[in-house]
């Protein structure tokens, strides 16, 4: 039986190595493909690296928004995309508070983190390198997760304050 898990993210610790992108795409695409990775590291300003991935909101607005019911939630609490059903309309992106989903570069189908079926590869490489920006949490659905579904630029503005103090208000 698979259990509910979640990927905790510590933005201040992200080094920007982007190995999570490489590990994710190796697992899902069989090759290095940063823009097909389900976790993408944004950088609105150098030093403000934001790993951007599905937060698994407790109310799953994306799932509800899909007009063809291509999205569903599995036992790990991940959102799975039925690629045969998906029509690439982009409604899930609009519904997501953090605009996390994106359309697959090749065929335009929605792409969302599936938690690697319970064993997320991004977390592995991030921890292996000692960064701990992404960590695995074994816990059930809860209301806090949605706080992490935000656009990268919003997160970056806060990281900027933390890292640069007052100057942080000027860089983005």
């Amino acid at each position: 039986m698979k259990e509910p898990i979640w990927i905790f993210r510590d933005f201040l610790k992200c080094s920007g190595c982007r190995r999570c992108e490489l590990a994710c795409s190796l697992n899902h695409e069989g090759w290095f493909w940063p823009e097909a990775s389900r976790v993408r590291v944004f950088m609105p300003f150098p030093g403000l690296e934001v790993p951007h991935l599905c937060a698994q909101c407790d109310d799953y607005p994306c799932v509800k928004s899909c007009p063809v019911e291509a999205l569903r939630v599995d036992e790990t609490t991940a959102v799975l995309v039925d690629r045969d059903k998906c029509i690439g309309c982009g409604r899930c992106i609009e519904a997501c508070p953090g605009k996390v989903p994106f359309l697959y570069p090749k065929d335009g189908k929605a792409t969302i983190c599936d938690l690697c079926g319970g064993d997320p590869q991004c977390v592995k490489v991030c921890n292996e390198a000692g960064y701990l920006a992404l960590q695995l949490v074994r816990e059930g659905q809860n209301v806090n997760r949605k706080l992490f579904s935000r656009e990268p630029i919003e997160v970056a503005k806060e990281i900027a304050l933390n890292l640069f103090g007052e100057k942080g208000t000027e860089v983005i």
Partner: protein
Amino acid sequence: MPRGYAGKLLEVDLSREKIWETTLEERILEAFFGGRGLAAKILWDRLGDIWPQVDPLGPENIFLALTGPLTGLYPGTRICCSGKSPLSNGVIGATASSEFASELKTAGYDGVIVSGRASSPIYLLVTEDGGEIRGADHLWGKTGEETIRILNREISEELERRRSNVGLYKEPGIIYIGPAGENRIRTAAVMTKICHAAGYGGYGAVMGSKNLKAIAVKGRGPLPEVEAPETVRILWREIHSNLISRERFRRWGTGYGGYSVGAETSSEPVLNWQSEWHDERGLGGPRFEVPYWAKRYWSDFNCTLNCMKLSCIKAGRWKGDITDAPDYEMQAYLGPNLGIFNAEDATHLSAVFDNLGLSGINSGNTMAFAAELYQRGILTKEDLGFELRWGDAEAFTKLALMISKREGIGDILAEGTYRAALKISELKGIDVTPYAVHVKGVEVGAHGTRSGRDMNPIGYAASVQGGDHTSSTRDGYDDMRWSVFNDSAVVCGFCSYDRLIWDFARAVTGWNITRHRWCTEHGPRIVTLQQVLLLLGGPDIYWNPEKDFDNPPRFYEPLPEGPYKGKSTDRAAVEMMKRNYYKVLGWDDRGIPKREMLERLGLEYLETTVSKLRKT
């Protein structure tokens, strides 16, 4: 299509506003790889016949930003910038770590080649749909920080507008210049990510001379296909675990080991290399870390070595300055070499240089040269407009601004240390070239040769890249393996492992590339071509190999203090090693390649030109 390559280069002629794509033959790629090697080959093919007449800052020069077959795949992703160097009048491969390189490959290009000159400031936007020339009037005069902020926003919005429902676009990879590049300061760097610089060679000035403020690229494709993907995947993991095990370097970067360069081996520049030793012990890693480091582990694409440390000064008179650690080179050149022995001032100057787009080593060297002339009373308060005392961070900040704007004395210093020395000698009627610490027009890195504990005697003297410490020479065999390879495969030297990288190179390209073949064929081919272009030189300076392919005069003066007091570079050793280096490479005693060697390396097309050089 050759493996590891995206398969095409983007070409832009700014004078005619034309953009097209070029594909290179596999045999050319196999012979020159990419980056530095390929740049030399392309420059020879296009400008070789007229090389001495080509003004590095004229529209006839070509600016290249090239990846190599390992870029993006091998950990430690870099971009190599090149062209005819306004410092050496030869070819230098200057690399910097940046997502620009991986974005370029995922957009389907191995590099960008820019010729001509735009009639007004522009930047290039490169995507999978090709390249486009966009106006940059709003960016001209802007600092590094401002340029990044504006471009990130502008380009992300533009791309989202074009393809509105695919989701958010990650920011583009960008290389750009600061005001220094715009004003054609010969020591201006090509900048990226606020504080990463392709510094040696002066390619920021080349971009500026083309009115090219920046190149921004966003790709959405995969990295190129390789010959043996499974082997690459396995090696990729192994290399990363090696990198991850290097705890000290990961934690401290170059500033930690570098500190010992000054404090143990006595080879750090102090007061324009008048000394290489100081008793002051206040400028090590921890002095920077605790007050200023904002991120201890700061990486670039596909790198877990993270030697860069994001720094920010949060209070006091330099409040708001953002830069990296600074790394060892900046620590030395913007510290002791200016008589500065505190972390706050060194960090501040590093941020000033970043924002202006000045190369810290090269322009830092020129500032120290000016300060020594002030110390000697050759340059006066009247010449400068203010007093330029050792250790005065405020005065050096002012001088950096004047150089980057070519104001007053800054206009002369903007020509780089050697050219400035020639001009000042003329103006003052005193020979000041003995105080110019450069080799072949390139200001030397912060590693001296005198104590014998750091740089070897011919590290700079024999190098086709002159003072470039990242490309130092030794025996004509082993040194081919390091920067000549790394800068042509275009990966970071700090991540380059001797066994693993050859296995990796074979698995990527499918070519029979071994260390020995590289050290006896590829490497010599690349540096021989570079040597010929350097010897051709011009138009303002032509090198005399017998006189100029040597250490700076200062490196033959005895060290005045410290544990190596009295030691200087051994002239006999320099001569012997240089001759040996030339011999190994099949060059004559003056460093001019012999006919047999040209033929053996497949460079017979150089013979007509080289035969003339042999006669001069």
